[in-house]
């Protein structure tokens, strides 16, 4: 009984107490409550940072599992590569300036930026492929999707607004009128659902938020 209380009920009670304190502060901003809210905000930052090495454990475990599936030369190379990258960046940060050092910034700019920027560019081709293979204008909804998309696209590309000046105000109208209409409806509905889930979490109905697998 005590075990269930400590392992399940007390954490759920903690969620409730902390959540209610924060909500009460919003409606009655007493200096003491505001100080508690600020302190809790600081705590979340520190907890998230102290537990950062969990990422390293999970990465190592994922690499180990990957190696078990593929024990070839290439498998071993793929296994060791993230750890080599890790060491390289730790060495970069060992120079004076820590992560502000020119050495670290050289590594980050030329390795991380180059790759991530390219990863974000690739979906361009998949968008074009999807437009070719799947985007069929066979309903009024599909037509609305395409018109909304194209008109807003033309507003963002100067060539079109230069060749056809009315495209600029039309594109802006699409952004600020029908897009706002649909977007606001979605925002309100998502907000209603978020409140329900939030309140369920506070009263302990959503145990999945703190379950450990």
């Amino acid at each position: 009984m005590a075990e269930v209380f400590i392992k399940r009920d007390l954490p759920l009670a903690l969620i409730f107490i902390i959540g209610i304190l924060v909500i009460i502060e919003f409606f009655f901003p007493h200096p003491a409550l505001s100080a508690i809210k600020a302190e809790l905000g600081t705590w979340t930052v520190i907890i998230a940072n102290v537990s950062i090495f969990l990422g390293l454990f999970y990465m190592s475990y994922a690499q180990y599992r990957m190696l078990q599936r593929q024990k070839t030369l290439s498998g071993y190379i793929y296994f060791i590569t993230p750890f080599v990258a890790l060491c390289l960046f730790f060495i970069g940060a060992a120079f004076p300036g820590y992560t502000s050092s020119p050495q670290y910034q050289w590594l980050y700019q030329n390795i991380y930026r180059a790759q991530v920027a390219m990863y974000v560019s690739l979906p361009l081709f998949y968008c074009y492929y999807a437009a070719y293979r799947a985007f069929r204008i066979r309903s009024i909804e599909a037509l609305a999707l395409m018109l909304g998309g194209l008109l807003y696209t033309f507003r963002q590309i100067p060539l079109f607004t230069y060749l056809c000046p009315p495209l600029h105000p039309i594109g802006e109208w699409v952004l600020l009128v029908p897009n706002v209409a649909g977007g606001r409806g979605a925002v309100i509905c998502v907000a209603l659902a978020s409140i329900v889930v939030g309140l369920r979490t506070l009263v302990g109905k959503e145990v999945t938020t703190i379950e450990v697998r």
Partner: protein
Amino acid sequence: MSASFWEILGIWVAAFFTFSVLSFLWKDNPYFKFGQQFIVGVVVAHNILFAMKSVYDNAVIPIMTQGRWTLIIPIILGVLMYTRLHRDYAWASKYPTAVLVGTGTGVMVTGILRGQIIDQAKMTVLDVFKSSNPVDIFNGIIILIGVLTSISFFIFTKEHKGPLGISAKIGRIFLMISLGANWSGETVWYLTQMTGRVMFLWHDWIKRAILGIG
């Protein structure tokens, strides 16, 4: 201005990793996989380094210089998070998670009600009357109709028939226009990123690193 050795080397390294990702367009290959594994290590290292500095700045320094001993509690809670790695003690990690979830839920719920429901509804109605300009009134009416009908689309407890069916269909059209605008924004974003990479390859890799111009 001639580039230094490290600048040129950096450009070649960046080009190497740029092409490693681009090679995926052809097919999945070892060159791409190597780059992929490398970035995993980079991201983990980067986040660890910044997290360590943040703990030092946000916890260690205030404790030692300002006497904020209460900050020892989140350090202990953060350490408790590691208990989730062992099945028998994983329950202890629920406590720091509870602090995170409780605080996060509390701050979220308070802002949502006014910011994303009441104020949004208020703006929708008041936009119709905000000015005497016929264009503004027309736009306001469109927004009002669009918001009401797109909300009706999300009513899943009643079948979409009759007036509700018509309203939901109109709402779906507004939602599709909104989705189209989002999709367009994404496509142009990807295009911008690709353009940026092409600009790097042309101005930095080809002109500076290979041809030595600029």
